[in-house]
């Protein structure tokens, strides 16, 4: 988990200090973010694991398409939501990482706001 002062990325440091959500977008196998390649890579890794888990569980439980997946580990919350405006052929995912345990409702609504602002 990244901590304040670990990095020279100003935006990442600011987000860590304020415990605010760092946003990312991913589509066609590539993730983009503004908090540096390491942070984006961490998000991409989490995204892949969460997606894999979501698919396995969804198939097993007959719950159809996944709309969001979130993980909590200690004081970190990581997750993603599918962009409902994207096409099924080229789905776009928006997600985030924050260095606090953010309530699910708050996390999802923040990501949705981010999607709407794009």
């Amino acid at each position, binding site marked *: 988990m990244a901590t304040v002062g670990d990095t020279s990325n100003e935006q990442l440091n600011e987000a860590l200090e304020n415990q605010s959500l760092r946003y990312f977008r991913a589509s066609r196998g590539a993730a983009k973010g503004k908090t540096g390649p390491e942070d984006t890579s961490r998000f991409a890794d989490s995204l892949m694991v969460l997606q894999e888990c979501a698919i396995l569980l969804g198939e097993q439980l007959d719950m159809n398409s996944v709309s969001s997946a*979130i993980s909590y580990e200690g004081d970190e919350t990581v997750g993603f939501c599918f962009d409902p405006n994207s096409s099924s052929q080229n789905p776009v995912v928006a997600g985030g990482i924050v260095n606090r345990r953010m309530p*699910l409702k708050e996390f*999802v609504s923040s990501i949705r706001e981010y999607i709407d602002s794009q």
Partner: protein
Amino acid sequence: MSPKGLASVLKALKKSGSVFGVLLSKGHDTVISDVPYGPESVEELSGILDDISYYFAQEKRNPDQLAFSYDGGNLVILFKGDYRLVVLHHNSGEADFISKSATVFLRDYVTGEAVRSFKATSRPSASVVENQGTEGVVPARTRTVAPTAPIAPSV
């Protein structure tokens, strides 16, 4: 936790909001299965939980909670040691409330199990022998305690 206590807490959890299924497993063993799926599906679900733990371990990660939202329902998964608790619910807006209830349930269950295990391995019960001593002699105090069992860390 006694079976009666467990049933009571489980009932309270199942009555939390729109919960429609609860599955508690320890390793490969199913401890509680109250889900609208057959035994085979429950076994497969336990296998998937194993896979999920493995995927995260490969990434050197150890989440304590996961939450998934689907068109057809939502689920919260809690991990605590070998225990995994899956709670299925309909209303995604209740996820935080259900997560809290599930966390309390799992904490109580694991703590209860730790106490039960401690009691079981502590028999015969701890005894204290105190020599009363006589006048002019410093009383000798001998304390005999049965070996202690490991207790799971508190939640």
